[in-house]
Structure formats: C-alpha cells, structure tokens
C-alpha cells in the first residue's frame, strides 16, 4: 500500500458504502485506476459483505419470528385502555388546526358573531308577526276597554268604574 493509500482509506470505506460526494468519488476512482492494492481491498470488502449478507437473507426468509409476535401481542393486551378524557386530549393533539394559534381568536370571534347575529335575525322575524299585547282580559264587575297608541309603544286597558265613564280616555 502506498503512502496516499492510507490517507484515502477512510474515503474508500465511504466509497464502498456509497456515501461519497461527487468530488470524493472521482478522487477515489482516479486512485483506484492506478492502485491495485486498493482495488484488491475494495474487492475483499465486497466479498466480506456478500459472505455476511447471503446467509443472513437466507435465515431471515426461513425465520417467522414467533417470539417477536408474542411480544407485540403481549404489549397490545397489557396496554391500559384509553380513558375518555385521554381520547379527547388525543383528539386535540391530532387536530392540526387547533395547533395553530391564529385559530383560537378566530374561533372565538366567529362564535361571538354568530351569537350576536342570531338574536338580531330572530328579532326581525318576530317583528313581522307582532303578537297582541293583551292576550286575555276579563272583569266581572266593570266594563273594560283596550286602546293602543299609534306608535305601538303604549297599550291602555281602561276599567270603567261605576259612574266613571266621563273620565275615560279622550
């Protein structure tokens, strides 16, 4: 191995793992062209990798990992069930819009607007169908008169007491 081979040793490892940059790759490849020792080393690394990989893959194909499944099942079975409160908390963690702070005042403002607008609409509707002010009236002893002022703000119920007729409303 030449002197510059030792300085390239780390780079060669990176090259083997496919982790070099374009510049490093070019440098390593240029060196490899003229260095049989490093070529040999790279070949050896490939063989080692293959020697490990093949049996490992074969073993993995045959193995069903029953112990792993047992462990997963045990975890599922013994995991404490989520309470209602925890699931609500979880929902708020998941819901992304609540994570954004801007939605908090926006939601409050929207709610208040709806609450303020709704009674106004309701009032409008009720003004179209005004209910009578006097729903029921009865006097067993006197005559009674109902009168409403034009502006609709005052309703008069007049009770004629005995010889009171002369002092009745105009």
């Amino acid at each position, binding site marked *: 191995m030449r002197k510059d081979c030792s300085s390239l040793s780390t780079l060669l490892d990176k090259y083997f793992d496919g982790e070099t940059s374009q510049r490093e790759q070019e440098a390593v490849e240029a060196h490899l062209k003229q260095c049989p020792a490093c070529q040999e080393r790279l070949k050896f690394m490939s063989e080692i990798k293959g020697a490990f990989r093949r049996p490992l893959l074969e073993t993995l194909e045959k193995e069903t990992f029953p112990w792993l499944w047992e462990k997963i099942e045990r975890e599922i079975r013994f995991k404490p069930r989520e309470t209602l409160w925890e699931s609500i908390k979880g929902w708020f963690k998941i819901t992304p819009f609540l994570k954004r702070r801007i939605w908090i005042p926006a939601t409050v403002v929207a709610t208040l607007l709806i*609450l303020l607008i709704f009674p106004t609409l309701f009032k409008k509707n009720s003004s179209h169908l005004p209910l009578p002010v006097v729903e029921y009236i009865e006097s067993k002893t*006197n005559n009674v008169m109902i009168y409403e002022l034009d502006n609709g703000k*005052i*309703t008069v*119920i007049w009770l004629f007491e005995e010889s009171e007729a002369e002092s009745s409303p105009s």
Partner: protein
Amino acid sequence: MNKRILFIILLPILFLGFSSQEAWSQIPTRLRVIEASNVGRTIDPSLKELHGQLSSLFRYTSYRLLRDERLHLSLNQTTTLPVHSGRSIEITPLKFYANTAELRVKIKREKTEILDTQVRLPPGRTVLIGGPKHGEGVVILAFSSLF
C-alpha cells in the same frame, strides 16, 4: 387538556347560558302608580318621560306619581302590591320567551277581583291600566319592561 382549548370550549357555552333569556330567573319590570285628575295643573317631574303620551291619551290636567316600583318578578310567583285605598294588584309572570314577558295581572278591590288580564310585555312597551277611582281622579298603573 390545554387550558386555552378548554377556555375556547367553555366560553360559548357560558355565553349561551347567560344570554339565553329563557333562562332568566327574574324579570325586571317597572310599575308606576299615577294619580290622574282635573284638580290643578300639576305634572309630576318624574313623569316627564310619560307625560306626552299620557296627555295624548287622557283629558286629565294633573298627573302625580304615587308609587314607583322596580320589580324583579320571578316566573310563576305572584307578587302582591297594595295600590291605593283598598285596592291591590297581583302580578304573576307566566312566561319569558323571545325577549317578551307574559304577565297575569289581577286587580282586586277588597276581596273582589275587578280585573283579570294577561299581557305581553316586550322591550320598550308600556301597558297602562287605568280607571279605578282615587280621590277626585283615577289611578293609572303603568307597567314597563326593564329588559
């Protein structure tokens, strides 16, 4: 749970609860007992606001405020007030919906019921019940909503 989120959820609920007028336990109402007569030409200064309407309705020259009550009526609970010489008034709020109070009003002379009526009192509305004799004039009861 984050306190802020809890606040957002609770705020509209509280707002709804407090703003729901159906949920009002007390109905603020004003009752004024007025003596109207043709003796003199005195207008009670505290009746300034009502005088224009009273004079357009009645021929009396003098209006005097005998009593001014701000009542907080409870639903289905009868409030009895003595009005004047042997007469009393019974007020029972029956309902409160769509910002309107429904009141049952009874006027009694001694133990005789001389008037039984049921009126709706929306905001800004005044109901006058007049006629019972008082001295040389009559008594006018003015009900106004304070909601």
